[in-house]
Structure formats: C-alpha cells, structure tokens
C-alpha cells in the first residue's frame, strides 16, 4: 500500500531505476491481493454508499468521484525514465538549479513531476525539507504536547471525512487517519494563533498520500505560511479578498463568464472557497490534482488563480454552455460538480501554462486597487494587523517569477 511513497532514498539516488518506478503501479495493485474479495481489509468502510469496492485505481482510490477509470494514457516508458534521470540530476544540484536555471525547473514541473519522485520534489520546491532539517526533533516535541481541547475536538470529527474513498483514509482509526490527526494537532500547537481550519485537512491528507507525517507536517507549514498565508486564519479574510481579486481577473480574462456570474449574483466565495483553500484537491480528477500541485509548489498561488480562471472559462465561456445554465442553481451545480469528462489533464495544464504575463500585470494593478479599497474599509480597524494583505496575491517571495 505504501509502495507509491518513495522518500528518504537518501544518498544514492542513482539506485532508483525505472524498474522501481514501474513497480509502483503494480505494487499498488499487488497490495490489494491482501484485500479480501469483499474488500475486508478496509473494514466496514469498504462498503461505501452501497457499493462494494474491491480495487483501487492507481492512485489508491476505491471509488467516489475522483476514482480514475484508467482511460488516460500513460507516458511512454522511455520518456518516464528520461524524466526521472533529469529530476535526479536536479536533486543532486538543487540549489544551483533553483538559482540559475529556475525556468527549466518550472518547465519540468509543468510537464509533471515523475510520480516516484514527487514527494522529494515537493519538499525541495517548498523548502520544507530545509525547514525540517533546521528543526530536527521539533515535530516530536509538538506531538508530545497536549494541545487545546477545542481544536482536538474538531479535528477528531473531521478525520473520517477526508477522502473517504481513498484506501489510506477509508478505515476508521487507520494509519492515514492517525497520521492526519498527528499533523493537524501538531499544527495547532505550532501556530496556536491560527489553530485548525477545516480546509487544512484535505491538504494535509494529500501530503500524507505522498510522504510520512513529519515531512507532511513541514510541507503543510510551508503551504499555510508561505504559499497561502492567511487562508486558514480565524477571520478567513485572505480567501475572501482573493475571491474579489479572482473575480476581477475573470472580468478581464473571460468577460462572458464574469457577466453570467454577476447576472445570477454568484459571489466568488460560493464556488472558489473550496477550490482555493483545498488547492483543487476535492475538485479535479486526481491526475489533474497532482499536475496542479506540481505547478503550485513551483510557482505559488498564481497557479491556483489560473486554474480557477481556466475552469470558469471552460464551463462558462461560450454561449452554448451558458444556454444550459439559465439560473443560479444550475450554474452553481455545474461549478460544484465538475464533470471529470470535461477536464482533460493535458489541456488544463496547457491552458494554465500559457504565459499570461498580461494577466499577472493586471493582477498586480488590481491588487493595489483592492488594497486601497480594503484599507478604506478598514479605516476604523487596526491596520497593522492586516498588512499581510499586501503580499497575499503575489507568489511567495522566495519564488522567482
């Protein structure tokens, strides 16, 4: 079951061969041989919504809307192997690559990080590995602390509600849920001022699908503090502000979708909250989720904006599409349940990747507009506490643009 987790391959990267990566998929399937025909090893949860599920897809899903039917084409073996070699080479000289050849790193992230190396790559891209090394023992220390009852209570209620169709999280009290508890709890102790936000759980779960708890914890820290600062904080102001910015960007990039949403009074927070806060992990087919996360870890929050814009353009960007959506409810339904058939991984990535320097410029301009507005709204509040707004919509500062 843990075959897809390739981490800690340490000092001898050259030992990681194509064969090992190829065995990742068969390993996932093989692991199911230990699972009874009735799916008994996942306990009572093997029967989900009346469906008895026996097999996982190659990502570990037993069913549900993010189950992959396997129709998508896999890249050629030689290509996969070449990519792995390139990535391993980058890992060996990571600092130099990031410093001098970042465009190439970015391009490679856009092409998709090889699944065998994804965990390592995410940790390097996010600097979470460095953070872990600088804080050896800290996670254990956090784990030993008791934590605040009000957070633990909520976290416990959410444990069985994250990717219930994924083999790692399907079993009540199973390893996945235990690890999830550990890292979410640790975060509330690490940042007592922020505590726990429900939207952190799916993010943490995706990380746990790829790496052990301690690594996942530091990766989560980076997402919450560097990539999406303020998204999970008590007032949720940051996400609401980004909703406004997003809507304004939509006006420039796809006026038709913008007018439609405006006409039916569909406020951005009605659909983008989950998209942005969970980094699309509950929204897209799984192969797309991974590709989006690969780009996100490399390029930051702008990827989240772009994916959102591409989705809206695809769903609301033509007269034909809008004809079926003659109401607020119909539109919301479409946005909330994106049909996997309408999303093609390669097209999505291509659209997101189309260099939209214009868009970015307009975004910065808009940031200043919105900043001015926010400041005027906040005139009676403590401004200093809201200063983080200024840098919010930009990619984290340590990312070269």
């Amino acid at each position: 079951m843990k075959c897809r987790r390739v981490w800690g391959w340490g000092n001898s990267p050259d030992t990681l061969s194509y064969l090992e990566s190829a065995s990742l998929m068969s390993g996932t399937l093989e692991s199911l041989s230990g699972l009874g025909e009735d799916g008994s090893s996942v306990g009572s949860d093997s029967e989900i919504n009346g469906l008895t599920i026996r097999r996982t897809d190659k990502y570990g899903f037993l069913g549900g809307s993010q189950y992959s039917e396997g129709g998508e084409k896999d890249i050629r073996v030689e290509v996969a192997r070449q990519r792995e070699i390139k990535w391993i080479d980058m890992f060996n000289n990571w600092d130099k690559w990031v410093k001098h050849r970042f465009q190439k790193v970015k391009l490679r992230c856009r092409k998709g990080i090889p699944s065998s190396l994804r965990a390592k790559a995410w940790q390097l891209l996010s600097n979470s590995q460095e953070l872990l090394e600088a804080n050896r023992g800290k996670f254990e220390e956090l784990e030993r602390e008791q934590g605040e009852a009000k957070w633990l209570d909520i976290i416990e209620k959410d444990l069985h509600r994250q990717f219930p169709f994924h083999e790692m999280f399907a079993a009540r009290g199973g390893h996945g849920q235990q690890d999830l508890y550990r890292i979410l709890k640790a975060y509330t102790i690490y940042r007592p001022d922020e505590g726990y936000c429900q939207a952190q759980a799916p993010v943490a779960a995706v990380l746990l699908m790829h790496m052990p708890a301690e690594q996942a914890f530091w990766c989560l820290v980076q997402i919450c503090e560097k990539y999406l600062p303020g998204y999970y904080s008590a007032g949720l102001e940051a996400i609401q502000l980004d909703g406004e910015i997003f809507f304004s960007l939509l006006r420039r990039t796809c006026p038709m979708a913008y007018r439609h949403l405006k006409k039916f009074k569909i406020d951005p927070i009605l659909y983008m909250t989950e998209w942005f806060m969970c980094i699309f992990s509950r929204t897209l087919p799984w192969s797309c989720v991974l590709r989006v996360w690969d780009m996100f870890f490399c390029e930051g929050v702008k990827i989240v904006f772009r994916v959102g814009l591409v989705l809206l353009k695809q769903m609301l960007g033509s007269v034909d599409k809008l004809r079926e959506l003659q109401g607020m409810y119909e539109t919301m339904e479409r946005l909330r349940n994106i049909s996997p058939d309408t999303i093609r991984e390669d097209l999505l990535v291509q659209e997101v990747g189309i260099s939209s320097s214009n868009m970015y410029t307009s975004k910065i301009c808009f940031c200043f507009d919105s900043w001015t507005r926010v400041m005027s709204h906040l005139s009676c509040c403590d401004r200093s506490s809201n200063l983080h707004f200024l840098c919010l919509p930009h990619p984290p500062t340590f990312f070269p643009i």
Partner: protein
Amino acid sequence: MQTNHHKERLYKILVIGDLGVGKTSIIKRYVHHNFSPNYRATIGVDFALKVLNWDQETVRLQLWDIAGQERFGNMTRVYYREAMGAFIVFDVTRPASFEAVTKWKEDLDSKLTLTNGKHVATVLLANKCDQGRDVLTNNGIKMEQFCQENGFVGWYETSAKENINIDEAANCLVKHIIASEKDMLQSEVSDTITPQLEKDKGGTCSSCFRSQ
C-alpha cells in the same frame, strides 16, 4: 425571462449548525433518500435541490448546506442572502452543539430579514436521535418553551441515519414559508409603485448574449 406555465415556487433554505451535527447527512437523506457514514466535511457551502408537490403546485427547495466551523461564519452573510427559511441543527449527543443553537439563530436573524422586516421561518432539528436522547429533548415542554423564546416555528427529533422526521420537519418549514410569503404580500401597500431600474440595462450589455 422565465415564463411560468404552471405555478411553481422556489425557496432557498439554509441548513446551519455546528460542525459534525449531521447537516449534510440530513440533506442527503431528504434529497437522495440514502445515508452514508462517509460524507466529506463541507468546506464553504454545498447545494442540493428537492422538488415537492404541494397542493397541486411544484415547490423547489434549494438547500444550502453551510460549513459548520466557526471561522466560516465570516462568510455567512453571502450565504444567507435571499433565503426564505432555515433549519438549525444540533446533535443530541453533544450538549455543546445545542448551546451553539442560539448563536446560530442570532447570526441568522442579524444578517437576514424578510422584506416585511420579519425573521425567516426557522425549524430546530435535534439530530442523531437514534443514538440516545438528550436529557433536554426528553422534556418536550422545555423545548417548546425554548422554541418560543428563540423564535423557532417548531422543532423535531430527527435521524438522518434512520430516516426519522426529516420529511415532517421539511413540510413544517415549507408550510411556514408559504404562510410568511402570503404575509409579506399582504403587508405590501397595494397602491404604492416602487420604481426600479431594469436589471438588464446595466453599463455592460448583458442581454446581447441572451439566448433567443
């Protein structure tokens, strides 16, 4: 834009309450007639549509399933807009979720009023009643009193798991919504004309791409 051939009513109904009390389960039971222990936690807001036949009319209920965590409370103003009724849900096995009921009711009433200035019809649901009864809900008289004091039009012990009282509670809410709608129509002064700009005549021409 919409031509009604036969009478059809559409109501937006909010489902609110603390996290994990069973809001999503209640909606799934009511709309899809099933129950699963494996629903995902709601992040932000979710939607479902229930169509009812009501005195030879079609009633469409747009159910808004709103995330229960306190910090999402900052977004409730947007979620509440134009709602006609609400369920406030608590978990009978968790007294703290009952204590939060008044907080949810206050939040609702402070952010949402009907055009006649009244509060929207709200029904209180004591959910998970299959898992043993709370001392409080054992005392019907006290609950009635609580409802009166806090402006609930009724309360029901429900179980999404065992399908107890959910249809009944919804019917009660719809009945009160229809009554409050009539009340609103009557309270409007009939000979007053309220001039309004046509919505479609904005600065940008949204009618250009309207389908024929």
